[in-house]
């Protein structure tokens, strides 16, 4: 693991106010949003001496948009992160106020958890975790520039005049790089959440030659909780017992239920001291006392308000140039692009227990304040709603992710990693996953160890990163299950098995979880083998279980196993044919990912490649043959030529025939 210049002192846990001297770090993480928090935590937990630089501490893991974690495909990312030792799953579980499972009828591959979080508790818990993490120093400052020597990062320069020296830097500035807030025809620089934008970094990146472009996103107004008439809305409750993302909380919850029925109070207290001790890290018993959401709909008047004032919207008035998110459309977009739809859902979602604000999901917009007020008041139940914070659109810079290797290290500057929204993504989960992987690889890089890269056949994280670095983005990138070719093997229920070896490589998950996964895997295999062998009326039990609607408990003979093990047995048997086929496909593709393209390959001298292919390959510079084959417009014959050329080169180098 990375050695630190001076041994980690007790000082590490304390925020350093304007240090007068330079510190040495293995990894400096710039920005403490969802990407930065994960990057800093994993890097520090891996043993790298890590600094996390952010301006106001209250912005750690802030949720400037919808305070929810998970959802279809995003939930998969959270499960994978939890299996690898990320924080997002635990953080959501401990601070969740409503828990749901989506897509339950569509089979296990696309099933997803979604948690509505208390946004203040969420941020506070992450702050507490960061404070308590060894090897991690929180620095309150602003970064104004990168220090670079011979195409290698050497640290960062801060506004307070310091130069922090480090082996690696992870940039996770979110939407802050040259961010600009728009409300109607009014606009001003800002990074969202009432904080100034980070412009010098943007200029610095541009100077270094990074390809950059602008994206746009937005958020709805916030409404005072008590100013809504909920009787006109449909109530939606979470599910009990709460479904959790994290192994840690699931473990406690399992014991809780067991103990509960046992009724032995003393033992329960002993086991549940964590939950029972109210702290920032565990503000309440996870999953307890859930809050409802409410559903209402826009009316024809709502649509008329938008139509009549379209020219005054930032988006339609021509004030915004960035590309927006199609799957999180602003309300103006919904009205203009789908004129046949005369009503849209609006979900009133809690922002937390302490706050008196709610989040009206579905009416993000960039209209002037007076129009926003009319819009809100035209919705049933919100006739007299009080708007506390106004909706806004935000434009920001992102760095073309094809500038990055699959490790998220930039191709231009060694040791400089990018994570989160700067890579062109949207969503806390996507940001967390990118931040985590950037943190892992920065820590490995600082320690002189090889990159950790997941392929498309083993993780949604792998699919996302490969999409980003191979195909780039034209609009903010969000995870969808349809982006994964092999959905039947990339399920959330098997994330811990898929991620097992990688979790061991990173080495930050609870050893107890590792042991349990190993034990479960054996139990699953043994039981499936038994079901193959044991017959009922001449038919192997495995075949009976494979039938529609059959459950493990229907089997004439069964073993006492954990619920999670039984679930795995059922899924693996029911989808066996498809799972095997996808595993074969994944292996086939993987072989191509292992043919490495030399960094210095000159595509222009390669005979036979089409001009356009040379151009795009020179721009993206794929790291291996598999990645090259996934670039849009590259033909199989290009790949064949490339492959032969690489082999020719290799043999010439080796001097063999």
């Amino acid at each position, binding site marked *: 693991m990375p050695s630190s210049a001076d041994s980690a002192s007790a000082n590490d846990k304390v925020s350093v106010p304007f240090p007068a001297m330079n510190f040495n770090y293995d990894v400096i993480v710039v920005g403490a949003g969802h990407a930065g928090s994960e990057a800093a935590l994993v890097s520090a937990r891996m043993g790298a001496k890590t600094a996390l630089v952010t301006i106001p501490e209250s912005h750690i893991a802030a949720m400037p948009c*919808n305070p929810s974690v998970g959802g*279809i*495909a995003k939930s998969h990312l959270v499960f994978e992160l939890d299996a690898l030792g990320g924080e997002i799953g635990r953080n959501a579980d401990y601070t969740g106020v409503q828990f749901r499972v*989506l*897509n339950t*009828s*569509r*089979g296990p*591959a*696309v099933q997803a958890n979604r948690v509505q979080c208390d946004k203040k508790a969420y941020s506070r818990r992450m702050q507490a975790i960061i404070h308590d993490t060894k090897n991690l120093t929180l620095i309150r400052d602003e970064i104004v520039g990168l220090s670079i020597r011979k195409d290698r990062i050497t640290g960062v320069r801060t506004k307070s005049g310091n130069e922090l020296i480090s082996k690696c830097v992870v940039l996770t500035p979110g939407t802050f790089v040259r961010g600009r807030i728009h409300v109607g025809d009014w606009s001003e620089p800002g990074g969202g959440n009432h904080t100034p934008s980070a412009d010098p970094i943007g200029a610095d990146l541009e100077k270094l030659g990074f390809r950059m472009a602008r994206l746009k996103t937005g958020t709805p107004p916030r409404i005072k909780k008590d100013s809504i008439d909920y009787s006109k809305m449909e109530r939606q409750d979470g599910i009990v017992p709460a479904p959790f993302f994290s192994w840690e909380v699931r473990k406690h919850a399992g014991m809780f239920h067991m103990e509960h029925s046992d009724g032995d109070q003393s033992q329960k207290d002993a086991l549940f001291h964590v939950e029972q001790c109210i702290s920032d890290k565990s503000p309440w018993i996870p999953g307890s006392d859930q809050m409802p959401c409410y*559903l209402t709909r826009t009316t024809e008047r709502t649509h008329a308000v938008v139509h009549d004032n379209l020219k005054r919207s930032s988006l339609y008035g021509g004030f915004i140039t960035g590309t927006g*998110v*199609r*799957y*999180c*459309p602003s309300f103006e977009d*919904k009205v203009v*692009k*789908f004129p046949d*739809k005369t009503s*849209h*859902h609006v*979900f009133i979602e809690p922002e937390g227990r302490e706050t008196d604000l709610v989040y009206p*999901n*579905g009416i*993000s917009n960039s209209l002037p304040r007076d129009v926003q007020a009319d819009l809100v008041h035209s919705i049933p139940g919100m006739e007299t709603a009080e708007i506390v914070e106004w909706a806004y659109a935000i434009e920001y810079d992102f760095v073309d992710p094809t500038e990055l290797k699959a490790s998220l290290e930039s191709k231009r500057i060694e040791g400089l990693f990018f994570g989160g929204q700067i890579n062109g993504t949207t969503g806390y989960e996507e940001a967390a996953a990118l931040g985590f992987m950037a943190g892992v690889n920065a820590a490995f890089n600082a320690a002189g160890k090889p990159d950790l890269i997941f392929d498309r056949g083993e993780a949604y994280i792998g699919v996302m990163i490969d999409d980003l670095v191979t195909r780039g983005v034209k609009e903010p990138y969000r995870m*969808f*299950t*349809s*982006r994964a070719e092999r*959905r*039947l093997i990339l399920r959330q229920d098997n994330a811990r098995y898929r991620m097992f070896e990688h979790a061991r490589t990173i080495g930050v998950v609870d050893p107890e979880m590792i042991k349990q996964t190993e034990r479960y895997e054996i139990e699953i295999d043994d039981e499936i083998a038994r079901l193959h062998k044991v017959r009922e009326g001449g038919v192997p039990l495995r075949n009976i279980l494979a039938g*529609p609607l059959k459950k493990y408990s229907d089997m004439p003979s069964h073993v006492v196993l954990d619920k999670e093990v039984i679930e795995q047995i059922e899924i693996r048997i029911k989808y066996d044919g*498809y799972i095997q086929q996808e595993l*074969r496909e994944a*292996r*086939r593709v993987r*072989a191509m990912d292992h043919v490495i393209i030399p960094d210095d390959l000159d595509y222009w001298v390669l*005979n*036979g490649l089409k001009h356009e292919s040379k151009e795009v390959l020179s721009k993206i510079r794929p790291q291996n043959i598999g990645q090259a084959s996934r670039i*849009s*417009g590259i*033909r*199989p*014959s290009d790949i*064949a*030529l490339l*492959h*032969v*050329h690489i*082999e*020719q080169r290799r*043999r*010439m180098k080796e001097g063999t*025939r």
Partner: protein
Amino acid sequence: MGTMYKDTIAAIATAPGNAGIAIIRVSGPDALHIADVVFRHRKIVPSTLPGGRFIHGTVVSPGTQTDLDEVILLVYRDGHSYTREDTVEFQCHGGRISARRVLNAVVDAGARLADPGEFTKRAFLNGRIDLVQAEAVMDIIQAQSDRMANLAVEQLEGRLSNEISNLYDDCLALSADFEAMLDFEVDELPESIRDGVEIKLQFIGDRLQELEATWNEGRLLREGARVVIAGRPNVGKSTLLNTLLGVPRAIVTPTPGTTRDIIEETLVLDGVPIRLYDTAGLRETGCEVEKIGVDRARNVIDRADLILWVMDGSQPVDQEELKLIKSHAGHCLVILNKSDLGTGIQEKDLNVPSIRTSLTQGTGLDALKTAITETLGVSHLDTLHAAISERHHKLLSIALKEIQTAIRTGTSSESHVIVAQHIATCAGLIGQIIGRNYSDNLLDAVFSRFCIGK
């Protein structure tokens, strides 16, 4: 040796044309397993053979187990093949039909069609070919893919290209429906999204099937339909050839057995190019020359797209001959000639399509010509429409299989992901034909169809 590739590839290794044999080469880790699936021998299972051996047997269709062709199977092992991978070669009868059938069987059994120059590429990467030859390898890849591209462009003009584009768009739209149902919550989607999903699937399946069928027609147009005139001696076969050609090409005499060798001529009938073969009358004969002629006739008959079986309609039916005719049912048209001499055979005795003619009198000719084009299935054809390459055909037929699997799987919500996967694969395959990228297009299709996202 040669373990770097996980998949097994196949292609027709011989040049197209009328060679005596065609070779289908299969290379990769599953080559022998595939041979086990498609090859039948009384005793021997291919995978038990050592390298460097060959056996004679039959290729069967992996699905229906029907015989496809008689072949010689060659087995290469332990790095002794061209690619240095496990390889099997099937030597089958010449001509495209036979070779294609074997190739189809091999692909159905799990091989994939080789990319341009892929065998040579593997040979190089597996160390079989010298470094000096690397440039030549790249030239081969380059040349083959250029030729394929040119072919594809030529073949995809006009209506066919439009039709495949439309099919792709429909398939993409259906895929978008399914993907939207997976990636978004039900309450975000219009209720109508589930309407008619089965019908849409069926519709795409039907059109794929039609397109696949046009491939056969397309081949007839490109290469000419092989129409063979057959029958007993002295029933008017050569007269039929001369009549269809409009010129006295074959010698016609009242002596049975006049035609000894095969006469091949081309003509265009209703816009359909036809390669017409006149053959020696089928009979047991002591004459050595005539015997060879009869053998050749049988050979050509076996490979015909259409057999014009000429009979003397004034004579009673010969049961032996009738058996022979029925063995070719489906692509056999019986011509009851010499109608001017009276009626012996009744149509109802035959149970195969027939036309009554008197070639010497010139009656029944128009009906005959119409029947020929109709039986070939090309009568309604517009020539631009139906020409697709073997590769495109393969893509279409795999796409068709995907859709058929989707239909069979059913559209219950439990199997939703699986059906979605099949439709996505299908759309991807059709997209490949017209150079559209499914992963580039899918989300556009989703977001142009639905107002989703909060």
